[in-house]
C-alpha cells in the first residue's frame, strides 16, 4: 500500500535497521516497519462518510478547531474541505483574507495562503503545498501551528 508517486525508501531503510529498532525499544517479534499496512488497510471498515456530527459536538463544547489545506493536493483537495467547513454554519468572525510570512533569508513578505475565521473554527490554506504541508512548506506550516496553539492572529 505504498502511496503513489512518493518515495520514502530512506525512512523504510532507517527504521528497519537493527540499531534503530533497538534504540526505539521495538521487540524482535514485532513486524518490519512500513509506511502503510496492507493488512490493516484491507481489513478496515469505514463507518463514516462525513464528520459533521463530530465537528458539531466538539464545537458545541467551545473547543477550537483548525482545518488547513495545502492548495495543490488532489487526494483531499482544499475546495472539498472549504465546502465542508462552510456547511457547518459556524458564525463568521473574519472574512477570507491572505495571510503572510517572510521567507528565511529574505526581507520581503509573501502570501503564505488564505484564512477564513469562524467562531472557534479556522479555515486555512497553505499556498503551493501539497498533501503533506509541513514537508512542502515547512516554515509557513510552523507559523500556522504556532498561531493556532498560541491564539495568535494570522
Amino acid at each position, binding site marked *: 500500500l505504498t502511496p*503513489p*508517486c*512518493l518515495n520514502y525508501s*530512506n*525512512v523504510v*531503510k*532507517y527504521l528497519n*535497521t537493527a*540499531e534503530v529498532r533497538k*534504540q*526505539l*525499544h*521495538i521487540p524482535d517479534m514485532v*513486524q518490519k516497519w*512500513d*509506511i*502503510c*499496512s496492507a493488512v*490493516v488497510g484491507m*481489513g*478496515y*471498515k*469505514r463507518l*463514516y*462518510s*462525513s*464528520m459533521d456530527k463530530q465537528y458539531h459536538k*466538539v464545537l458545541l463544547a467551545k*473547543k*477550537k*478547531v*483548525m*482545518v*488547513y*489545506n*495545502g492548495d*495543490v*493536493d*488532489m*487526494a*483531499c*483537495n482544499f*475546495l*472539498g*474541505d472549504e*465546502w*465542508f467547513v462552510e456547511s457547518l454554519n459556524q458564525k463568521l468572525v473574519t472574512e477570507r483574507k491572505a495571510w503572510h510570512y517572510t521567507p528565511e533569508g529574505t526581507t520581503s513578505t509573501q502570501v503564505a495562503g488564505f484564512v477564513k475565521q469562524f467562531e472557534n473554527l479556522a479555515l486555512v490554506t497553505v499556498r503551493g*503545498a*501539497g*498533501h*503533506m*504541508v*509541513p514537508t*512542502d512548506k*515547512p516554515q509557513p*506550516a*510552523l507559523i500556522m*501551528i*504556532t498561531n493556532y*496553539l498560541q491564539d495568535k492572529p494570522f
Partner: protein
Amino acid sequence: APPAEEIKYMPGLHKQPYWKQYSGYLNATGTKQLHYWFVQSANKPSEDPLVLWMNGGPGCSSDLGLLSEHGPFRIGKDGASVSYNPHAWNNVANMMYLEAPAGVGFSYSQDKNYTTDDDQVALDNHMALKNFFLKFPEYAKNDFYITGESYGGIYVPTLSARVVDDTAINFKGFVVGNGLSDDEMNSDSLVYFAYYHGLIGDSLWSGLSKYCCQGNMTRCAFSQSRGKEECGKALSPVTEIVYGSGLNEYNLYGTCEGGNGIYFDEETNKVAFTHQKWQMKNNPYVSQKMKFIQDFTNVEDHLR
C-alpha cells in the same frame, strides 16, 4: 516519564538533542499495543501544549509524519544519516506520534487480529491516551490537542468527539490537515479542482455539466449522478487524468518520484499500475504526452 523508554541515542545523528524523547508502547483494548514516539518540546516542556499527531491511510504510520513532515529529524537519502529539521513543531509543542491502529508501523496485537473500524480505532486511541498520561503524569495539566492528516480527517474528529467528554484530559481542540471530511464533497470538488487547474478541457466539462448536473443546483453533485450511464462515461476520463496519467495526486506541481498509481486498463479489462502504463510505448495518449515533455526539455534552456 518512564526512564526505560527514553531514547538515549538517535543513530545517524551527529549531535544528540538536548531535549528528551521516548519510544514505547501504550495499552489499547484487548491485546493491542500501540507504538508511540514522544518528542519533548525544545522550548518549555512543562508549559507548552501536548499535541498528538496521527497520519492517515487508514493504515499508515505516524512515524512517517515525524521523520518526513514536522518532526525534529530528517532522514538522509542514504537511509542512515539524520539531520535536524529547523521547522519542527516541537519548537512550540510536546509532540506525540501514535502509530494506530494495531498492525501499523511498529504497533501490533498479540492475537494478530487486525480487522477494525472507525469507532474501534477511536476507542483504542482513547485507551492508549489514558495509558500515556499514566506513564507521563507530568503532562496531564498541559493543554492537549489532537491533530492529524488525510484519513486523520476521520481519526481526529472521531477521537476528539470521545475525548471531549473525558474530564481527566485537558482537551483544548483539534487540527485536521488535508483531511477527508466528507466523501461526496471531496469527490465532487475534485472535478472542479481539475477543471480550474486546466487538467480537463471545455469539451469534457461541457459533457460533465450536461450529464451530471441538475438545473437548480448551486454546484454539481457528481457523486450522486455517477450511476447514470452518460455521467459515468463523462467522469471516467477525469479519474483517469487525475489518478492515472502520471500526475502526483499529492502535489499537482510535484514530481512523481516512484510508487504505483493504479488505473483500469480497458484493453485488458484489468487493474494495472501507472508505471506500467508509462512504459506502454504504443499508447497514443502517453506517447503524445511524453513527446511534449521531451520536446519541452530540449528547448527549455533557450526559453527566457
